[in-house]
């Protein structure tokens, strides 16, 4: 199986000049095409830090992150923005959506950034909003949607640009258990039917149960890596 993400000996030290915090201490990780992987570990173990580095939002202190045969640590600021736009979908814990745009416009947004045609956008928006079960709510603003619905729109938005993979940092942290279950249903369905790669962090045992691979971090290092059969 081809790797989508290869993390090699990544370390991250915050505040190296004052009070150094070793957030990651030599992490190696390979994520293959079509994986559905949860990143778990106690608070402060480095989950967010690792996801940020994989997503090109932050730089590693040492080591490399290879995506698409490209070491993203070596890209310039503007190249990395372009790279994120083309290859990575993001779902954050909150504040995912642009509040002044409707659900449909939010989903289209990245496609517009990519310069997709009107027809292509319409087709994709319809398909994705169907997939996340919100085809009825195309014209609602985020404030008119529940937290769970907003996260589903965020998943649709993340997928709109046909990224190589989707990164999600605690996407269910602000959701009740029903919404959590719905969101996971959608994510795993997209994963199985469309072979979309998901890498997400979570504290929630119910979410962990749904993952097919669980990577556990502790104190900035991978301490276990289990793939369910």
């Amino acid at each position: 199986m081809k790797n989508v993400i290869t993390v090699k000996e990544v370390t991250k030290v915050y505040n190296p000049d004052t009070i150094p915090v070793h957030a990651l201490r030599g992490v190696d990780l390979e994520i293959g095409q079509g994986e559905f992987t949860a990143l778990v570990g106690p608070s402060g173990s480095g989950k967010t830090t690792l996801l940020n580095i994989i997503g090109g939002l932050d730089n590693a202190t040492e080591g490399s992150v290879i995506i698409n045969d490209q070491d993203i640590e070596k890209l310039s600021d503007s190249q990395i923005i372009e790279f994120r736009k083309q290859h990575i979908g993001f779902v954050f814990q909150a504040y995912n959506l642009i509040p002044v745009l409707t659900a449909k416009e939010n989903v289209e947004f990245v496609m517009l950034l990519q310069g997709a045609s009107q027809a292509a956008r319409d087709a994709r928006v319809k398909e994705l909003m169907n997939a996340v079960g919100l085809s009825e709510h195309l014209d609602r603003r985020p404030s008119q949607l529940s937290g769970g619905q907003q996260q589903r729109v965020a998943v649709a938005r993340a997928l709109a640009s046909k990224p190589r993979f989707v990164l999600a940092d605690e996407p269910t942290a602000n959701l009740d258990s029903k919404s959590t279950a719905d969101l996971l249903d959608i994510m795993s369905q997209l994963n199985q039917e469309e072979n979309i790669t998901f890498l997400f962090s979570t504290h929630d045992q119910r979410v962990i149960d749904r993952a097919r691979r669980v990577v556990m971090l502790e104190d900035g290092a991978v301490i276990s890596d289990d793939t369910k059969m």
Partner: protein
Amino acid sequence: MFNTMIIKIAWRNIWRNKIRSLTVVGSIVIGVWALTFMMAFYDGFVTMYISSAVENDLSHIQIHNPEFVDEKEVKYTIDDYTELIKVLSSDNDILSFASRSLNNGMIANSKGSRGCDIRGIVPIDEAKLTRLDKKIVEGNYFDLTKKKNPIVIGKKLADKMKLKVKSKVVLTFQKTDGELISAAFKVIGIYKCTNSIFEEINLFVQQKDLGRLLEDDQMIHEIALLLKDVKQLDTVQAALASKFPQNLVENYKEISPDVNLYESQMGVITYIFIIIIMFALIFGIINAMLMAILERTRELGMLMSIGMNRMKLFLMIVFETVFIGLIAAPLGLLFGHFTVLYFSKVGIDMTEALEKVGLNEILYPTLNVESYFTITVSVVITAILGAFYPAYKAIRLKPVEAINKI
């Protein structure tokens, strides 16, 4: 395309914090309103100043023998006078004109003597052209039935020489051949005008008296004329100049450098007004936009994370500010327009305020279409400039830090 999306977001962002946006809109409206009024007021003031100078003194066009302008000698009279008068009388663009005999001389009484400019006028024509008859403050204007050698002198001169109505004076002046002659005149009126130096030096006699004394009743040195419409100034001036090339035909701007200065400075003053007001507004805009950016830090981080580049982010913030300006500018212009319209109907009484300057008139603010355009463009430029710093702040944000911001 994507830019329409940026515009859409920028536009809708304005309405997220209505109070803040309306505060900015409000201050721009007030600024533009004040600016509109100030510009119209100044414009009206200059118009008033110029028209007062034109109506009381300069007229629109003056014709001289060019030698006379340089040498001031009596022998340099206007060339082809009779023909010139014919042309002026039949020209439909001309409202009125008056001929003058000018002579440097002395005025004397028992107390002493001083130099003066003697203006030999045709009373009816002069009254029509410069309203000299309306400026008489003591005694009377020239009257056809009255006796020999009446004279009208300025208030200032009267004060200096302790002259009153009915005082007798002796004028001494040159004939064409250089010989001096003297004659007795009787003060029949004292005039007051806006310019006290003019008042001190210039005195008026009837041209026919002067002609008789000089033994030449066509000794005309100056013809001044008013047009029906100032817009015809250049055309009429050019036509007269080409028809009578021996004479010097000048317009009021050429004759009076200070009127010319006022007119040309109008543009500069306007820009100074604009800069002052816009400078005040720009701080309000910067402040409001910085607050907006602070409020939306996480959202901006998210936008950068999902691939919105700095250029687009920058544009988005600039657009938002420009939209605020574009909402406010027309409102301010509208208020300004109606205020100017109102005062241009009723006028602003400047009698007390401007008495010292010698202008005692009603001021009518005026504004041309060009100014409305200038103001709008200035507001947009100000908005863009005001957006720069906040937008710069926004694009300096690091996505991770922005997202993690509480």
